[in-house]
């Protein structure tokens, strides 16, 4: 009994947290056997076991794989473009006062607005192929990256910049040796936010203008009242964002481990 109590006390957070999620799933599963659902509701109802069955079936039919492939391409290409544009622009804006002042109104306005409102326009411009989704992912992900890179550059230790300057470093060398390494933790935070926005772009973009992809799968299943397939899609998106966020958070804590104290206490 003591051993059991000790076991519980040591792992209380995990047991309570995991137990809660498990019991929610169990409760969900047991709803149909406890109460008889009226016709109108049972149409929209599914159970976790049904969802797993639907998932299995979709995998066997090779459907998930093809939808997943399309969504993954949109996500990766859009995010890569966002990094390619957001990072250099953030660095330059952080270093140049004039460019900063000139671009700031645009960055602020676009960052405050959910970029999804541009979706109809992007569909008009790029059609319903893969490029409208890539651009919506791009405009979603580029601003968090740009702004966090900018913040990182702005928070660079002035002393370090002055030191390399005094030793005759030019702008490019200052950037390479001091500014960029110092902004890396900020950039990683930006990356974490950007991943969330990019996934949002993939999901919503595929809702409205696509014939393939996981978002399309969800929207299509919903119109056909295949609620279990909807939950398969939602679960995949949840799993993906949890996994990606987990890895970026790991990277974040790894990178920020060496930072503050060593920088301040020398």
């Amino acid at each position, binding site marked *: 009994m003591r051993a059991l109590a000790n076991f519980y006390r040591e792992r209380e957070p995990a047991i309570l947290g995991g137990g809660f999620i498990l019991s929610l799933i169990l409760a969900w599963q047991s709803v149909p056997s406890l109460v008889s659902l009226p016709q109108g509701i049972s149409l929209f109802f599914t159970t976790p076991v049904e969802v797993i069955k639907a998932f299995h079936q979709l995998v066997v039919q090779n459907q998930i794989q093809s939808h997943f492939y399309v969504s993954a391409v949109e996500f990766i290409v859009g995010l890569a473009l966002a990094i390619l544009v957001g990072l250099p622009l953030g660095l330059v804006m952080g270093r140049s006062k004039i460019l900063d002042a000139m671009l700031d109104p645009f960055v*602020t306005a676009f960052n405050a607005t959910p970029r999804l409102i541009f979706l109809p326009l992007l569909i008009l411009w790029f059609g319903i192929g893969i490029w409208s989704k890539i651009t919506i992912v791009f405009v979603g992900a580029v601003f968090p990256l740009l702004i966090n890179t900018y913040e990182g550059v702005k928070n660079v230790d002035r002393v370090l910049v002055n030191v390399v300057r005094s030793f005759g470093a030019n702008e490019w060398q200052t950037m390479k040796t001091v500014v960029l390494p110092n902004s890396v933790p900020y950039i990683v935070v930006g990356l974490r936010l950007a991943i969330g926005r990019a996934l949002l772009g993939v999901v919503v973009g595929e809702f409205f203008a696509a014939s393939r992809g996981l978002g399309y799968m969800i929207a299509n299943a919903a119109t056909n009242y295949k609620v279990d397939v909807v939950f398969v899609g939602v679960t995949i998106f*949840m799993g993906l964002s949890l996994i990606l966020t987990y890895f970026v958070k790991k990277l974040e804590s790894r990178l920020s481990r060496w930072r503050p104290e060593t920088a301040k206490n020398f």
Partner: protein
Amino acid sequence: MALRDRYYEHQRPILGTVSVIGFFLLWEWLLTSVVTVDPFFLTQPSKVAAAAKELFLGGAIWQDLAVSSKAFLWGFSAAVIVGIPTGVFMGWRRRAEYTLDPFFTALYASPLVALAPLLIIIFGVGLTGKVVLVFLLAVFPFIFNAFAGVKSTDRLLVNVVRSFGGKEKDIYWKVILPSILPYMVAGARIAIGRGIVGIIVGEFYAASEGIGFAISRFGDTYRLPEMFAAILVLMILAVVFTEGLRKLENVLAPWKIGQEAR
């Protein structure tokens, strides 16, 4: 010389204004006298301004804004009413934190917008579906910011209230509530953005009125000036609200607080 000093003093706002005005002028000039672009593909600022005037004077946009704001306000208020107590409870009770935190974190990190088609099919294309969507998206910033606010409450203040015979109720009202206030503003700023996403997606997906519906309908019918005008209105609203709250945040708590948006 004096002019030069004045310029350096206000360099930022001057350059910002110049670049915004310059951007619109360049856009107008390029499309009128340099290149001719298919009007179904791109429009120009003067036409957008004319369309905006028409939308506002004709009253069409007010109707759409009213419909969208109604759904937004219901969902947002529900998020405040549910989110703040939940977050405070999680922050104050250790076991509640252990129990609820993994579940809520998973929901907060995942794109809940993916549920939109299902919600709209269940609740219909009217108000309810959008309200539920806005609530689902906006509640987590409130929960996690209230949680972080309680966690950062000064233990000393709590002990003082206790020592002077204060009850649990006094701790909540006199210590916790004031100290989570700035966090709530930060939460509201993030929640507004997510709430607008909910409205937009709900109305793109299935609606017969509302600002999101207006944007997608103008897009479908190739009425680009009207579409740009509606987008611009939404952008201005978003900037006013988020930047206003950011200012309020800086007033209430000049140090950086709160959880960033995910």
